């Protein structure tokens, strides 16, 4: 069964290109245009990984992660944050919110794919232990 990735960004072109890259590599992709929509999808669809932009309408990426961490259904889902602002998220915030990785825009789809693969691999190893 394919791993499911939720991609949240208000830039439709970014969602499109990430979706193609992930689908070409065997992932199932669901998408949201803002933070609020992303949170609803995360609760309903239980994705294996969430890839979210930092700055989005209705709910920012950071607000989305914060909310996900308070909800039992989404607490343990690993999150990758895409940000165009350098140093937007401190190391402390990243650790306290359990953000698996921060990638700064412009990012490489290849790098994003590898990051997702690494995270899922680590989770599989952790599950076996």
């Amino acid at each position: 069964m394919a791993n499911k990735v939720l991609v949240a960004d208000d830039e439709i072109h970014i969602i499109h290109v990430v979706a193609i890259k992930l689908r070409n590599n065997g992932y199932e992709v669901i998408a949201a245009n803002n933070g609020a929509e992303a949170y609803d999808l995360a609760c309903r669809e239980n994705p294996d990984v969430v890839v979210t932009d930092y700055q989005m309408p209705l709910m920012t990426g950071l607000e989305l992660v914060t909310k996900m961490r308070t909800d039992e259904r989404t607490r343990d889902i690993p999150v990758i944050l895409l940000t165009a602002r350098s140093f937007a998220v401190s190391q402390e915030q990243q650790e306290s919110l359990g953000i698996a990785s921060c990638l700064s825009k412009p990012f490489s789809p290849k790098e994003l794919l590898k990051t997702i693969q690494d995270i899922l691999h680590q989770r599989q190893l952790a599950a076996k232990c």
Partner: protein
Amino acid sequence: MRGRPSTVWIATAAALLALLLAALARVPGTGAAARSGDGLAWLHLAAYGVGAMGVIFLGVGYRRCAGAVTSIATRLSSPEPAGTERDGPRAPGALTEAVDARLARNEAVIQELRGQLRDLQVRSQLAEREKRHTEAILYSLRDAVLVVDGADKLLMANEPAAGLFGFDAGDSRRQPLAEIVGQTQAEFVELLRQSRRTRTEATKREIVIAREDRPHTYEVIVSCVQEDGKALGVVAVLHDVTKEKEVAQMKNDFVSHVSHELKTPLASITAYSEMLADGEANDEETRKEFYAVIQSQAQRLNRLIEDILNISRIESGLIKVRKEQASLTILIQEQLQMIRNYAEEKQITVTAGPPIVYDQVYVDKDMLSQVIINLLSNAVKYTPAGGRVSVGTEVDEAARLARVTVTDTGAGIPAEEIGHLFEKFYRVSANNKLAKGTGLGLNLVKQIVEKVHNGRVFVTSEVGVGSTFGFELPLATAAEVVAV
């Protein structure tokens, strides 16, 4: 004198004997005179001889007296201790010379002392003048300057210092600094104490002091004044860097905003080009789609850079303006065509009021088109689906003004944020999540209307009802119309 046979006494006795002999020789009837004429002659001779001896003895006595006087005078005038003189008493000429020499030396000393006195007076005047200059400089400085002594008591403070800490500069001299500036400035007082204790020269520190309007940041330079290793006091200069800090923060924000806005389209360009290079676009249609995205994002990037540059050029007065006579109605219709597709996508109705009779303005057409499209796209962007946007135009003949308004049924703007709307990169926090934006569009509108065309921008809004953005421009004058 006492140990020797007195020459003076011998001389005096000889003189008296001579006078007696002479008197006997002259008195008639006396024995000597009566005896014979030769006896009288001998008596005369003896008297003269004794008188001569007296004169000789008197001369010798005088010489000795003169020698004694000279010796006394020399001893009195000479710095040598008494008894050191070996050459014997000097002649009166030597005394005069010695006195003259001494007088000459004393005169030289007096002249030298007078010279030194004059020098000291000049130095004192210069020092006084320098002090006045220094005080004048200190008092004319906008920076606050405080000087305290070795016991942390105030020696001097200029007006800005007195104003800053709220004390009277004249009445507070010799008062402890801690009492003058108050408990709230403990950090500042401690800084001065520390400088004095450690004999530190020119330490720089930033402190925040509450003012009437807001907290101000001061760069404080404190320097311990020392003499022979002893701390005489401390000089503190406080420079208000609040404005510089705000400007630096604005610059940082600007760079942060610009980099964010530039990175967004750049992220798409980078991702799509990498996908093309890696052969991830599986068919021709997908490849074309990717190229189209790269092209549109490159154009977006270019527009953004143009907006930033235009604002910068207008602000610096370096923009090239090509004004010509133009019809406002035509310019508005052109931009309405541009926005219509976007409005339809969002199911927003866009309407324009009836054209006005005389709508000629003297403007840079490209710039004014930019103003109109920015106002229209903002209205559509912040109006929910099913809303309306209407464009109105009117002329104030008396004021010779054309007025354009763009009214929407959007989210509206809170009253406290309206004053900031035309600031660079400002975005209404409540509406920030409704749509993306750079916060440059309205600033560019204001720059073009007010700086380039001597017009005026305005806005009215009500939360939950909608907003009206607009601008006024002077109507084209007859001269401008003829010139075209």
